[in-house]
């Protein structure tokens, strides 16, 4: 598969083949057995999300499912985090700008041991620590209270700045939705991150091309997205956001350009691996029946079987 990469300032060329190799640049790639393990982890994370859906009956499944591969790679192969020391000053930070994708975040944090996975069953209950948007004071491992869209990038920028001031090597990883890119404060933050040369941050735009009321390009087009980020001073690459190897290769290659913040436009599928739900805006927020959930769990088992084979 050939993927266009827009990285004019990169020493690497604009074409990425097999996800892992720019001309003249070796990028990290998974060994076959590692890849199998991670694919199984992605299935596990989606299962956790369904577990919360079972408990709470409703949630933002579309964006959570589209982001699972990115979350898997970041938490299992890239970020330097320690569940036993969630506030360790040298940790890498993860900012979920699109806070409604929190099901994916809760899922991976539980799986990594930041908290007891039994808490996943409290989703939707009174006074649960797992709200419909994340709260840093209720669960270890959560860095920001997001949910009001289009604002995580500013907070992430401040973190990146603080880390640089302290000369810490930690990095800040941000997951944004494509729908939230219409919010103005994103672009204040994008300009400031580039002005202050915050090359210790990496943004993934989980571009699933859908938002509540329709196709993102129809609701409020931000195309050409790569050119916009470039114009704001970022080093930009575009990948298949469902491809673990492409995510890994790029997430471990920052800064793409020294002195510039990096952004990966990750093209994904909304509600990926949810049978009957993929690429449908109706699954932005889903009220699930027992039958639906059984069908979704069945589908994950099938995927797992194929992966393991």
């Amino acid at each position, binding site marked *: 598969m050939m993927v266009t990469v827009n990285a004019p300032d990169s020493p690497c060329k604009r074409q990425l083949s097999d996800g892992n190799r720019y001309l003249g640049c070796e990028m990290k790639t998974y060994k076959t057995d590692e890849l199998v393990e991670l694919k199984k982890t992605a299935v596990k994370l989606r299962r956790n999300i369904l577990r919360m859906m079972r408990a709470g009956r409703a949630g933002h499944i579309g964006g959570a499912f589209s982001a699972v591969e990115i979350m898997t790679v970041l938490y299992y192969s890239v970020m330097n985090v320690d569940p036993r020391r969630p506030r360790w*000053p040298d940790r890498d*930070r993860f900012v979920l700008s699109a806070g409604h994708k929190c099901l994916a975040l809760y899922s991976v944090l539980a799986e990594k041991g930041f908290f007891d996975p039994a808490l996943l069953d409290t989703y939707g209950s009174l006074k649960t620590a797992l709200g419909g948007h994340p*709260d*840093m*004071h209720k669960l270890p491992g959560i*860095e*920001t*209270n997001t*949910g*009001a869209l289009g*604002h*995580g*990038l*500013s*907070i*992430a*920028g*401040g*973190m*990146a*700045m*603080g*880390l640089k*001031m*302290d000369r810490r090597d930690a990095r800040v990883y941000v997951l944004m939705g494509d729908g939230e890119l219409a919010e*103005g*404060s994103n672009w*204040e*933050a994008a*300009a*400031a991150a580039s*002005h*202050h040369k915050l090359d210790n941050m990496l943004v993934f735009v989980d571009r699933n091309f859908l938002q509540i009321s329709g196709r993102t390009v129809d609701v409020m087009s931000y195309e050409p997205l790569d050119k916009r980020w470039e114009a704001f001073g970022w080093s930009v690459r575009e990948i298949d956001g469902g491809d673990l190897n492409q995510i890994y290769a790029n997430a471990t290659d920052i800064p793409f350009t020294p002195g510039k913040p990096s952004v990966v436009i990750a093209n994904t599928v909304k509600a990926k691996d949810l049978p009957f739900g993929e690429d449908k805006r109706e699954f932005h927020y889903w009220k699930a029946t027992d039958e639906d959930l059984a069908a979704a769990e069945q589908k994950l088992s099938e995927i797992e079987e194929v992966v393991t084979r």
Partner: protein
Amino acid sequence: MNALMKDPRKTFGEALVEAAEKHPRIVAVSADSSSGSGLTPFREKFPERHFEFGIMEQGIMGFCAGMATTDKIPFFAAIAPFVTARPFEMFRNDLGYMRQNVKVVGRCGGLTYSDLGATHQSLDDMAIIRTIPGVTVINPGDPVDIRKATLAMAAHEGPVYMRIGSPKMPVLMDEDYPFQIGRGHVLADGGDITIVATGTVLCKAAEAVRLLQEKGLRPRLINIHTIKPLDRDLILTAAKETSRIVTVEEAYLAGGLGGSIAELLAREYPTPMKMIGIDDRYAEVGPYEELLGLYGLKGEQIAATVEAFLNA
């Protein structure tokens, strides 16, 4: 009045340098107005701790919160409406809800941008920020208050909003008076009636008290420099002992000092009140002192309101 006059922004800026010498984690953040916000001495003394962002107050709130998560103490100083009304949601979520140790200073608050109109005057800042749980709201009444408040904010853990004005203001408080966040101060004791004043118009209330004293009246004057948390005990005691309360502020009557005290008294000890300030309108444009006169905030006007209330 022969009191020593001091520039509030300069006073804040000097106090911030003093605080920053003690607290190496303090950083200063600007939105294209570092000089106007009194930050020149800080910028010169600690250039590596000063960050300029240009005119992007919504984004800056997030950057400040993010820096605070790395243990910095950001002081973000800019024009009052643009650090309160403009980025209100970010103030609420990033600083309040996230409980980040960020200090926001709104300068040229109230009517002090008298000639620039309603976009720049800031009459609702204390009222709206007061609704955010966990945020302290300070409105210092004189240069001594400003210095002490700045030092106290730096030492206080948690988000704070401080409003300061722009024209030079008289020194009213003793340099060694015990300033404490959340504690008001009795400037003149008396049992006939209580005047509670805050911020830039504390001096006008003090003038009114002198005029009333000349007439043989004994009003009590309380300086409330902390709008939130309000000094409940001091207000309730005054209500019980003097039976009438007059509030004086350069702000909307709704939600500010008068609103806060009315809420308290209605619940705990209903007491007749008069509230002096701006009542639900966009203020006019004009010279500052004349604008104060338009809204009954000059010393002799306050005295007249108090006297009429006493005689009612």
